């Protein structure tokens, strides 16, 4: 096993990876850009090196500096986390060239699965259904008739060369098609310098289901069951759970086999995730893409399996065999993850910045928090708005949801706006608790995007707000960390001690 590993990342995932590595007896090397100098992922590291520059490109994306830190620190391996360079075949190759083990898939399999056309070819090779799509059309006016005759409307026009919603048009009927092709192609040309588009069948209310894969370098591949990730906002996942409420044992077996077949066909090594769209009514599923890295939502899988996926990533990268058979993968209970973002759900999920004046995560049975921040931390606009991930495990779905509700309710955050109260509204919403939801959940429940209606609690809040404002001067003198300890008075109260 490695004795020293560089974590080329920041935030909660850099903390979480180091926790596992340090528990394996591996020394960790952190890197940081200026605003992160006193971030938790740095303070917990065994060694830390600054990255110089104002942008991510100069710092966490700077391959040259990262390799220099690895060399200087004596690291033998690099864990890229997620985001940043985690899916860069060039970085993986540069690590190898520098004699460093890249804790992740091979550059070749990363490349094969990162390319839209090639990954669909691999899926076809593996016999895995993909969302039906046309061949690449050569720009404006191309003849799309064959595809339309076979699949009908609605359909999507999509850019061949890129993603993120650019060059994408939803087409409801034949009269919109010509204009959509023209407009999508123009946008794709502007965005990616490549105007080629293709047509794809549009699934109206799919569920987003993914399967966690583990593959060692010796051809043994297993899946670690599914994660349900249909609760999304702005095409980003917000809440994940496992098992999926939509899954039957037979469907789970079929989708799991498809994920494993795909990984085998791509010669995939290490941890990865096969993403699918599922039509819950027909139980038809379609391959979407492979995320060739650790995923944000991996803790829900760890919670129901009692496994440590990051430990397996390190072991596989160090050449160890994956000594778990598929039939030994047995889950216990149910787990749900909520992503805590510094953002305001009631203003279009606009991010929020400021100092965390209070950050008191709930603790207790069945709870896990993976956090990149601490009380006193300054949330800046430089990086992702993901502050932490709260995971609740329970013996069944109802218990884990109830635990999550309680944990979100007992999680005071002050100093900036987060989505914690919003998340509680979602996990207690009947559309979610019944389990019958899909990726259109927030579109179908626009009430959730409005601030809650006036309630009795609002009057208490107004009263307390008035009380706190009236007391402000005297309160300001009582900073908990500066006020002398008042031994004689273990508590202060303005209320009665008698029953009301």
């Amino acid at each position, binding site marked *: 096993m490695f004795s020293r590993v560089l974590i080329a990342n920041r935030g909660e995932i850099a903390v979480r990876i180091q926790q596992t590595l340090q528990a394996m007896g591996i020394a960790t090397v952190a890197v940081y850009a200026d605003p992160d100098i006193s971030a938790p992922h740095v303070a917990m590291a065994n060694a830390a090196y600054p990255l110089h520059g104002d942008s991510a490109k100069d710092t966490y994306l700077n391959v040259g500096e990262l390799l220099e830190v690895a060399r200087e620190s004596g690291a033998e391996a690099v864990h890229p986390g997620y985001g940043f360079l985690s899916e860069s075949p060039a970085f993986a190759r540069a690590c190898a060239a520098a004699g460093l083990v890249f804790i992740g898939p091979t550059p070749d399999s990363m490349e094969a699965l990162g390319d839209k056309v090639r990954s669909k070819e691999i899926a076809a090779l593996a016999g895995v259904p993909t969302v039906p799509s046309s061949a690449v059309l050569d720009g404006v006016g191309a003849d799309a008739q064959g595809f339309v005759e076979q699949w009908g409307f609605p359909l999507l026009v999509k850019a061949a060369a890129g993603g993120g919603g650019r060059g994408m048009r939803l087409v409801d009927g034949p009269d919109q098609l010509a204009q959509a092709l023209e407009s999508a192609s123009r946008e794709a040309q502007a965005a990616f310098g490549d105007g080629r588009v293709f047509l794809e069948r549009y699934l109206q209310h799919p569920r987003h289901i993914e399967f966690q894969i583990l593959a060692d370098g010796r051809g043994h591949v297993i899946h670690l069951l599914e994660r349900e990730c249909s609760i999304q906002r*702005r095409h980003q996942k917000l809440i994940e759970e496992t098992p999926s409420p939509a899954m039957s044992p037979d469907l789970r077996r079929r989708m799991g086999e498809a994920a494993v077949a795909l990984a085998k066909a791509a010669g995939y090594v290490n941890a990865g995730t096969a993403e699918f769209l599922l039509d819950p009514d027909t139980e038809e599923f379609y391959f979407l893409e492979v995320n060739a890295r650790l995923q944000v939502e991996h803790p829900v899988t760890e919670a129901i399996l009692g496994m440590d996926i990051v430990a397996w990533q390190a072991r596989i990268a160090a050449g160890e065999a994956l000594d778990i058979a598929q039939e030994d993968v047995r889950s216990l209970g149910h787990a749900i993850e909520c992503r805590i973002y*510094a953002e*305001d759900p009631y203003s*279009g999920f*606009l*991010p929020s*910045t*400021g100092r965390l*004046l*209070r950050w*008191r995560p709930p603790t207790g049975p069945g709870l896990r928090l993976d956090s990149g921040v601490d009380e006193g931390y300054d949330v*800046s*606009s*430089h*990086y*992702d*708005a993901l502050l932490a991930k709260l995971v609740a495990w329970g013996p069944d779905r109802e218990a884990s949801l109830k635990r999550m509700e309680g944990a979100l*309710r*007992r*999680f*005071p*955050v*002050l*100093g*900036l*706006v*987060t989505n*914690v*109260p919003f998340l*509680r509204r979602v996990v207690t919403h009947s559309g979610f608790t019944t389990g019958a939801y899909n990726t259109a959940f927030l579109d179908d429940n626009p009430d959730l995007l409005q*601030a*809650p209606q006036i309630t*009795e*609690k*609002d*009057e*208490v*809040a*107004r*009263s*307390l*707000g*008035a*009380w*706190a*404002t*009236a*007391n402000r001067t005297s*309160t*300001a003198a*009582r900073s*908990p960390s500066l006020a002398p300890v008042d031994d004689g008075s273990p*508590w*202060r*109260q*303005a*209320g*009665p*001690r008698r029953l*009301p």
Partner: protein
Amino acid sequence: MSQRRIQPHYPTPGPAFSYEVSEENGQVLVHLDSGTVALDVAQGDGSAGWCRPAGGLLLPFAYAWVGNDLHLWLDGDLFIFQPAEQRSRRRVDASAAGGNIASPVPGKISKVLVQVGDTVEADQAVIILESMKMEHLLKANGAGTVVRVLVEEGQQVDRSGLLVEMSMGS
């Protein structure tokens, strides 16, 4: 305690209200325009504790000041109050006046979608702002004309920074 006014700002902005606070038999009495609320309040370390409205459930709370804004966490929900005075001062501030476009968060200007002299409609996208690795559309409050564009693409901007000056009315 002299009569003062504060104004709910989050999650739902609301009208300013007057209050008076007194204590009686160990209870906190808050006199609002709408009536008097009696609260038991138990405060621990000076900025957190629990309260109980007469006849109601116990509710934990914590609060902190962000400048003159009061951030109040109450039983899982966040409320922000502003002094009513400050609020009205802000109203006449150039950056928030009329239909001008200000930056709600610090960030970088990804794209300026209008030019001086352009007429825009309500809800038309005017600026694309990048913050926390996401793009955010800043839209016009109403129909009007672009009078001045104060930023260019790639520029860093602060929270509340004025980006586009507008003359409203179509």
